[in-house]
């Protein structure tokens, strides 16, 4: 099923050269509020990423609030996009999401296996949390 947020992101990246795509990712990164330092702990970090990524989640009014941050801008840009799509939704909705934008903006094909693995780890972690919140 198509998703309006993802379609809008895809539209923005459409036809851009890779350096411009990175430029766009950087501007998305700048939009993302930094995570409070106290939450940037080893416990909250996700392994499998070339740059450090921290995750923090909590429930609010039946929705899952996700806070992600990274020390690297490009990674931060990618997680900023990811948050636009997955954040602040009921857990079931998150589990049902097909994250097709990653492929369609060219991220999947452009990320090396190691980097793609990092992104996959982040998505896996979000899904795990959503699943836990279902029970």
């Amino acid at each position, binding site marked *: 099923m198509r998703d309006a947020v993802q379609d809008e992101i895809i539209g923005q990246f459409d036809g851009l050269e890779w*350096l411009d795509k*990175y430029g766009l990712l*950087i501007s998305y990164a700048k939009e993302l509020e930094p995570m409070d330092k106290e939450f940037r702990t080893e416990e909250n970090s996700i392994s499998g990423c*070339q*740059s*450090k990524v921290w995750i923090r989640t909590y429930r609010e009014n039946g929705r899952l609030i996700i806070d992600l941050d990274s020390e*690297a*801008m*490009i*990674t931060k840009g990618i997680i900023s996009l990811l948050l636009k799509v997955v954040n602040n939704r009921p857990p079931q909705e998150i589990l049902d999401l097909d994250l097709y934008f990653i492929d369609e903006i060219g991220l999947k094909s452009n990320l090396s296996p190691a980097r793609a693995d990092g992104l996959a780890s982040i998505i896996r972690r979000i899904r795990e949390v959503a699943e836990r919140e279902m029970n």
Partner: protein
Amino acid sequence: MSDFRKDFPILEKEVYGKRLVYLDNAATSQKPNSVIDTISDYYSSDNSNIHRGVHYLSEISSEKYEKSREEVSNFIGAGEPGEVTFTAGTTDSINQVACSLKSILKGNEVLVSGVEHHSNIVPWQLAGATLREIPMDEGCNLLPDSIEITDKTKLIAISHASNVLGSVNPIKEVVEIAKEHDIPVLVDAAQSIQHMPIDVQDIGCDFLAASGHKMYAATGVGVLYTSERFGDILPARGGGGMVDRVTLEETTYLKPPLRYEAGTPHIAGAISIAAAIDYMQDIGMDKIREHEHEVYSYARNKLLETDGVTVYGNTKEMCGSISFNLDGIHHYDTGLILDKMGIAVRTGHHCAQPLMRTLGTEGTVRASFALYNTKEDADRLLEGIEKVRMMYA
């Protein structure tokens, strides 16, 4: 200086529509046509197992394999080919020594430098030794005079050149001190053998480890020099091809080097090292050193002159790698943009986490040079850096 790029077909490649600037040579170097042809020719006309067959192909393969050993031996100034063993690479060479000396190392101490990569740290720990660092100054110059040798010190294992900083360690001075105490020294030449002439007898070390793939030969093959006085240590691995007589009660081993080469070796790889040595020697190691020094110094000085760039390490002699960071920009972000500009560098901790802690950083951007790199490559790197800064401004 002539352009060696033409000898390396991969360097013709365009990435993202730009001419490839390959500056990840400390990870692995590209291969000249002569090496590629040697590997291809081996499989298309000579392929056979060595030291076993009575037949024609086996004879030819064995001959080429042993000829390569002889070339390596001459290249590093070993006393005789028997002192050179083919291994799977530097890491394997070091692991073999660690394993063979396990009974001596266990519960004792190995001295290392502060710039070692994990391959010259972990094998010693696995063998049960504790590690102690040889002191160095702020520029990462080793201070051999402050080496402290105790009853527990059983080996000194140091890199000739750092894979991160490009700093060259004063190995001869270290060996001199070690000799006074009759301590063997292992030199990790992974990051030096392709950059400068090496003479193990002049250095006076007992072991020297190097990788084929960093010196323009195949991956998965390397060399280990073992001085004659350690020629009778127990092999780390057993199997076919390394034994004299086997009974279920007892086995006796062949003399070195064969006793250290259990099983079928990487024959094509070993032969490719000879082709790589021929290639380098045709140019001349001194000439390579001179050309690389010119390009390296040019790049390093330009980086040092650039505001907002931190360049790590500063020793008397340097080669190969330059590590740096752009102020306020994560090394990973720098590497990604450089990649899109066709410039291949490495980012991260470069398998040298203790050194990263000393430098006070999580990681660096590393540009590492080979004989085919030019000042133009360095200029492209600097342009790339400007672009990175613009993008993250």
